[in-house]
Every structure is written in C-alpha cells, then in structure tokens.
C-alpha cells in the first residue's frame, strides 16, 4: 500500500465518522422542531458520506475487499472519541473493551 492509498483510506475514515456525527445530530432533533436544523445536519452527513463513498470506490478498484475493508476498523476508536467529544456520549467499560478488541482484530486483519 502506497502513501497516497493510505491517505485515501484515512480521509475515507474521517469523512465516514463525521457523517455519523451529523446523522446522530439530525436524528436527535425533537419531532416537530425546526425542519431546517434537521435538514442541515442530514445533508451535511450525506455530503461527507458521499465523498467517503467515492474515495472508497476508487480504493476498491485497486485492492481486494477482504484486505481493504478491515482498515475501516480504525473507525470504532475514532467514532467513540468523536461521540464523546461532539455528542457528550458516556463511555462504559464494556464499550471500551469491545472497541479495543474490535480494533485489535482489525490490526491483525490488515497486517495479514
């Protein structure tokens, strides 16, 4: 994997996590609340997700799926950190243990 492929992978992950934060913000809007807030969050989510999608499609044409896909496993760590920071979500011991196991699994998969 070259430096530019790796950069594409990291950019894909960042866009993907940002999209999730936007989506959660959108779905947390109270029902009957201002529609503009929901739409703004939702469309921002779609936009960064779309960027992640096309970066990913480019990567898929160059590598095997079972090799490439597990890189996405960096995302649980990025995501729980982002959720704690931007959504003030609580972390439990189980969640940390699970996320660390998942990420360790991902490191092994991508090293093989």
């Amino acid at each position, binding site marked *: 994997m070259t430096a*530019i492929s790796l950069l*594409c992978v990291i950019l894909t992950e960042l866009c993907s996590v940002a999209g*999730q*934060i936007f*989506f*959660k913000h*959108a*779905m*947390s809007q109270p029902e009957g609340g201002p529609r503009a807030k929901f739409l703004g969050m939702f469309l921002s989510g779609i936009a960064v997700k779309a960027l992640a*999608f*096309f*970066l*990913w*499609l*480019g*990567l*898929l*044409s*160059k590598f*095997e*799926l*079972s090799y490439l*896909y*597990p890189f*996405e*496993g960096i*995302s*649980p760590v990025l*995501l*729980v950190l982002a*959720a*704690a920071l931007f*959504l003030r*979500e*609580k*972390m439990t011991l*189980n*969640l940390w*243990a*699970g*996320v*660390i*196991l*998942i*990420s*360790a*699994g*991902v*490191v*092994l*998969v*991508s*090293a*093989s």
Partner: protein
Amino acid sequence: MLSSELQPTHATAPVTVQKPHWFGNAYVQVVISIVFSAASQLLMKRGADDSVHDAWLGFSGLHSGWVWLGIFAMIASLAAWLHALRSLPLNVAFSLACSTHALVPLSSWLLLGEVIPLKRWIGIALVIAGVAVIARPLVKLEEKL
C-alpha cells in the same frame, strides 16, 4: 376497522399490536442495516472489478449495474441506520455495526472466493469477540424489558 366487523373471529388480534412491533425495534434495525451494508460492499467490489483502474476517485464504477445495486443496498442500510439512531446512542449502535468487519471478509471468502490467511482469521475472531462483549449486557437488558 371495517375488516374486523366483517370477520369478528379476528377481533382478538389487535391485543398483540399494543406491544411495539418487533420490526421497529432499534436493535432489529441495526441488524438490517448491517446486512444491507455488507451486501453493498460485496456488490460494489463486484462492480469495481469491471471498471477502469486509473483514477483515485471511483467515478468510472458508475457504469456498472453492480455498483448501482450496491448504492441501493447502501440507501436501504442508511434508512434502517437512521431509524436505529433515533433511540440508540451512536457509540453503542456503531460498535454493534462493527460486526460488518467480520461479516464482509467472511462473505468475500464465501461469495467472491477471496483467500483468508490465518492471521486474518484471528483478526475476524477478535472483531466478533469485541462485538459480543458490547452486545451481551444489551441482550440481558432487552430480556428484562
């Protein structure tokens, strides 16, 4: 209402409707989202294999019907995901959704004929263990309800 008048024997049926329908359960929606997400990855890989290999953005993949099927599966996955996010915290829902990291390599082994070396098998097992650690207390919680 009209049909229950016509068939009074079915009048007891609405009693079970009082409970929220299982399909609307946030965890069921997470599972639906996972399955569609894995399917979309396989479909897009199938499509990307047919496309040109020269660009860093995969726009040429849009010529493939497989890629469009993948996009459709991705939209279905997103719909289920948004439904789940209404009631689940993002960090829990996302960690459960990480089972795709085991499901995708397993199905690309089964369906695309890709080879999985031993190290990758161990990694897949760790991912499954991680999801299980997060899911177990949630399953106990659901049983109590």
